[in-house]
């Protein structure tokens, strides 16, 4: 886990302040465009005249674009936000930079990295969840964890499997088979103090640490670097989660013909 020393006093931009949405083209095979609601940036304690740039990019590629959105107090959406120069395969994420235009020109004053755009097909509840779920083609696989880059992890279900998006919310057998495995992978990344791929100050990392601390009933010890200790902690969290979710008991209840038991 990278614990950066923020010697530049750069602020991180809370996701609640902004909203980015991808828009499918009405013309077949034409690139998508996007909209960005950035009015919340004015709440940041940065100069109101600082410049705002939105940079979409494709994970796993060097493909990127850049759009000038004016200043913090005067957001101006560009006339054309078509993502025409981005590679079309791969996942699109966004970076928002607020840049000093007067005192120390070019210095990044605030930054939001690895922002996922809002997917129209994902409900608001799922979007706010600690582990958002979406569906897309996955070949013959049933599910996978999208843990690429520094964006919040998402559970991806194969859209070829009928009703899978609904069943994951209600079927305890499916939940017990998929969710703990996905959570275990995420915890492995979040808890590993030597994982250099993920920044400790990302808000989704902090969300997962708070969640894990709630399960454990005690704060997460960030400084532990003993791999065995980290693994033991991970297993403890997963067992605690399984107890709370009562997967086996709920499956038994369904098999016995009774009403499905709620999880705790």
């Amino acid at each position: 886990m990278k614990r950066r020393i923020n010697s530049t006093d750069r602020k991180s931009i809370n996701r609640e302040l902004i909203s980015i949405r991808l828009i499918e083209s009405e013309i077949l095979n034409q690139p998508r465009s996007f909209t960005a609601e950035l009015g919340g940036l004015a709440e940041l304690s940065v100069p109101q005249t600082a410049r705002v740039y939105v940079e979409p990019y494709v994970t796993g590629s060097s493909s990127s674009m850049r759009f000038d959105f004016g200043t913090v107090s005067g957001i101006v959406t560009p006339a054309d936000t078509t993502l025409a120069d981005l590679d079309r395969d791969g996942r699109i994420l966004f970076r928002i930079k607020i840049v000093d235009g007067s005192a120390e020109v070019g210095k990044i004053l605030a930054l939001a990295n690895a922002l996922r755009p809002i997917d129209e097909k994902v409900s608001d509840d799922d979007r706010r969840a600690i582990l958002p779920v979406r569906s897309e083609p996955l070949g013959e696989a049933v599910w996978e964890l999208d843990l690429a880059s520094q964006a919040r992890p998402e559970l991806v279900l194969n859209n070829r499997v009928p009703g899978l998006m609904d069943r994951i919310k209600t079927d305890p057998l499916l939940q017990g088979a998929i969710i703990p495995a996905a959570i275990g992978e995420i915890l492995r990344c979040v808890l590993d103090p030597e994982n250099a791929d993920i920044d400790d100050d990302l808000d989704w990392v902090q969300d997962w640490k708070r969640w894990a601390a709630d399960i454990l009933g005690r704060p997460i010890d960030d400084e532990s670097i003993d791999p065995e200790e980290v693994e033991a902690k991970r297993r403890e969290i997963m067992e605690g989660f399984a107890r709370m979710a009562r997967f086996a008991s709920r499956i038994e209840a369904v098999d016995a013909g009774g009403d499905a038991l709620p999880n705790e």
Partner: protein
Amino acid sequence: MQVGTPSPMSDVARVLTPRGTERFRAWLAKGAATGEPTPRPLLIDPECSAPLAQTIEIEATPGEAPFANRYDFGAYLRNKLAPLDPVEIARDIGLWNWLSLYYFDLLCPSASERTRGLLATEVYVLSPERKYRQVFRHLVRGPWYAVREHGENAKVLLIHTERSGVVLATRGRIFEELASRQGILGNRTVIATAQRLYFDGKNNRPRLGASGYGPGSIRRFAIVVQQLELTYDTRACSVDQLLSLLPREFSEWKAKVQ
């Protein structure tokens, strides 16, 4: 062969249709290596090519002299295509594929009937997917884009010191290091800084040692710029400001600038 009839030495540029592109691609896959002549009839075949929105006259060898380097080629194309909307033509794969076929014997000359030094198909033919790693390597679009975006500062990208290979088909290490990153190729400050550091304007060539791998090399420059971008928005910086941010390993190069 005259493509269109504007003047004795020039031709009217067109775009290859999907069918024309497929036939060009098929020739590259088989005929080009077996001595079949360049399929120039495709350039005017109405099923394989179509007119551009405006009449653009081009010449295969302007002034009857070959292009001295990729910069001259890019500058020529930039000037010739200036009447067209640059944003639109940047994405017009039919145009770039037509130009690639038009200039093919310069991009890939045959020393004898059966000896063409063919490179990967993607450097001659753009696909509809337009993946960046293919687009930047296209031997016609690449020089045009670099000169349109960076003017004279594109020299550091397009004039190389490689002694072997075909002038218009050899991209050089500086181009690969900088242009392979879309965020860098589109960044005027970074390219202008590279031009200042690594290009010897007096001799019209990159400075000796610029394309090496050691401290202060172009490879290190690309890496260090990406690190600086965690703290600075380099596009908003001036060249002097970016030079001042570079660490000590670049001192030798900075001294050559002053």
